[in-house]
């Protein structure tokens, strides 16, 4: 048999016309080329992506180890061993990042009470420390977006324009689901955008980064960290504060629906009783 050095192969390519190689030779040549191609592709792949084996070797930090214990107790039945997800129960958490955990677990949405259109906000099942630990574990499993350290709102004394810019961004990006007043709104088939009246700055930031439930992801390419902080400033400094003039009751901020209800329940009711009072009855 002929040896199959690259030099000879190259020579063969250039001298293909000289004569047809034998059948056995063609087959061996094809097999060798195939092996070489596979080895090359595999080599490049292993070189550039962190493989499953690589993960095993890294040590989880202490916080992540504690988080893993909590995860294995409370999350594993739906999100599976190593958080890779369970068919029809829960999605994989590889790459969702700690932002997602801080929002979902921190607001009590996870663990879910039952499978339904959308997880409801509940009393959180884990303390903030425990939430951080689970978040750290998920972060170390597969990376992903993280809520940055530092202040998540703008200082309005130094930067007073941030409020108006945040309002503008809020109306462009958020109102179509959460409504102008942040009162929330319905989506299709039982899904909904929750009200923003009691949500914290951290959770808003985490939600924008991770796109929980039916919310789209507003990554740093869509809204820069500065813009996110401005939106949070508008929500926390304007919508959540009692800076909204026009009476003691804002009727939930649901717009003309509750205003129409109020005119019948309050206005018409009082005036019908007044007319009963001043006029004859049957």
């Amino acid at each position: 048999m002929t040896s199959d050095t690259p030099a000879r192969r190259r020579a063969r390519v250039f001298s293909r016309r000289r004569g047809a190689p034998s059948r056995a030779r063609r087959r061996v040549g094809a097999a060798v080329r195939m092996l070489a191609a596979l080895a090359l592709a595999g080599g490049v792949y292993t070189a550039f992506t962190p493989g499953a084996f690589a993960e095993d070797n890294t040590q989880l930090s202490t916080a992540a180890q504690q988080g893993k214990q909590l995860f294995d107790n409370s999350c594993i039945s739906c999100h599976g061993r190593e958080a890779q997800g369970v068919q029809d129960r829960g999605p994989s958490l590889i790459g969702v990042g700690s932002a997602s955990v801080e929002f979902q677990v921190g607001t009590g949405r996870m663990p879910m009470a039952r499978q339904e259109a959308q997880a409801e906000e509940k009393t959180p099942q884990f303390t903030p420390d425990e939430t951080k630990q689970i978040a750290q574990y998920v972060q170390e499993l597969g990376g992903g977006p993280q809520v940055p350290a530092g202040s998540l709102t703008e200082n309005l004394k130094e930067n007073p324009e941030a409020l108006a810019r945040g309002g503008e961004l809020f109306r462009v990006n958020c109102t179509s689901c959460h409504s102008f007043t942040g009162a929330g709104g319905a989506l299709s088939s039982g899904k909904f955008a929750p009200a923003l009246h009691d949500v914290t700055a951290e959770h808003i930031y985490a939600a924008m980064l991770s796109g929980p439930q039916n919310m789209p992801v507003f990554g740093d390419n869509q809204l820069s960290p500065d813009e996110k902080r401005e939106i949070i400033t508008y929500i926390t400094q304007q919508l959540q504060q009692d800076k909204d003039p026009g009476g003691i009751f804002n009727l939930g901020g649901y717009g003309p629906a509750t205003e129409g209800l109020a005119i019948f329940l309050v206005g018409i009711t009082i005036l019908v009783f007044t007319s009963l009072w001043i006029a004859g009855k049957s």
Partner: protein
Amino acid sequence: MKRRKLDPAEATANFAKGVDDRFQVATPLRALLNKVFPDHWSFLLGEIALFSFIVLLLSGVFLTLFFDPSMKEVAYHGAYPALRGTEMSAAYESSLRLSFEVRGGLFMRQMHHWAALLFMASIVVHMARVFFTGAFRKPREINWVIGVLLFLLGFFAGFTGYSLPDDGLSGTGLRIASAIMLSLPVIGTWLSASIFGGEYPGELIIGRFYIAHVLLIPGILLALISVHLGIVFKQKHTQWPGPLRTNENVVGERMFPRYAMKQGGFFMAVFGVIALMAGLFQINPIWLFGPYRAAEVSSASQPDWYVMFMDGLVRLMPNWQIYFGPYSLPPLFWPAVVGLGALFTLPMLYPWLEARKLNDTRSHHLLERPRDNPERVGIGMMALTFFVVATISGANDVIADKFHISLNAMTWAGRIGLLILPPLAYYFSVRICLGLQQHDREVLAHGVETGIIRRLPNGAFIEVHQPLGPIDDHGHPVPLEYAGWVVPKKMNKLGALAPTVKGFFFPVEKPAEAPVSPAPISTSGTREEISSKS
């Protein structure tokens, strides 16, 4: 010099005499002041509309002093920090200034808006009263038609006013209005382009709506309200049947002083309720909506409640687009144009339709109790149910969200409800009317139930009835004719017990003495035998 004593009575008389000498008004004024109005609480519902219209005019004039109906782009530098530096139209900017910088401006704006909602609500309630009591019958058909037109005008007045501040919510409403215009076959594009002065939204619409809102529509409203009241004055108000009341007379109170006092007081009450609501309840917080941008739409964007039925019909309409070769008829056309048209035309024609069906050409000045015309009540309840289902569907996203119902389920419930509930409402209201009528006739034929059970010698128990009229030789009551008015159904209405003490939380009058009939309460403590032989 002796000072002449001023006698107030004489001075007034002299003044009035002086006026009459010059203008000869005593005779017509006497007739006017002595004009008699029937007194019933349900006749005051229309007054709520009239009085809230007056509040609308007064508060509206105040608002025009500060509002700038221009779509010129300006940058905001006002008192509200969360919009500072934002580009907006001058209309929106002046609405914000009106709300935050003009003293009492926000209160006046809220009063204007609440008064508008109250105006429309009281029109609907008044209309229901007129309909269910048959007050629209000959000779009052034209006034009924004017009433429906007043609702329609109020509808447009409200919509144009809702659009004026040029905020995010009103722009969304305007966008829908433009789409409805575009859905009209053949003329749609032309109509929308001519109203908006080109492509939506253009730069003219606020100015045009402004003149419609502050001049054209209120002018026509004022004229039609005057005609409405003039016709009531000329044709005289209807009255309930009752003792001494006939189709030819009017029994009630004179215009002056009692009726005028009551009306004046009621105006104050309406004014007070509007002011109370304007002070307590926030309405239309335009500063949160931001300036209108076509790309910004909020969830829970709804029109005011009296337009909501149309929005509801649009939400419920299935996606049925009809194609004619290269042309198409959008589904929006059916609920928004045909639906709106039918909902205004059919009520207008109803007086004639009913008269034709009943072959009734007489004039009616006595009202009918709803129970006496079950068919009419059924039709009215059918229409009202349709309206309510459509209105609720106009807010179905808010209801779905706050009551945790699927929005899809709300839409389907609305679609099915719109078809199923009105016939059910018809059936049940007709049955209820017939039952109430039957009970009245039963009492007239047999008397009032006394609650006294008597045992007959054969062991049977019967309840003793108190006849309302004379009895025949056998002791049976002579059946009385039904007069279309309240039939007493309890013994205390017949004087067996003292009448109920009037007052809501505490008595407003001294309780009447208990009547001596049927028997004085014995003080000896022994109970007397109750018998029906008397």
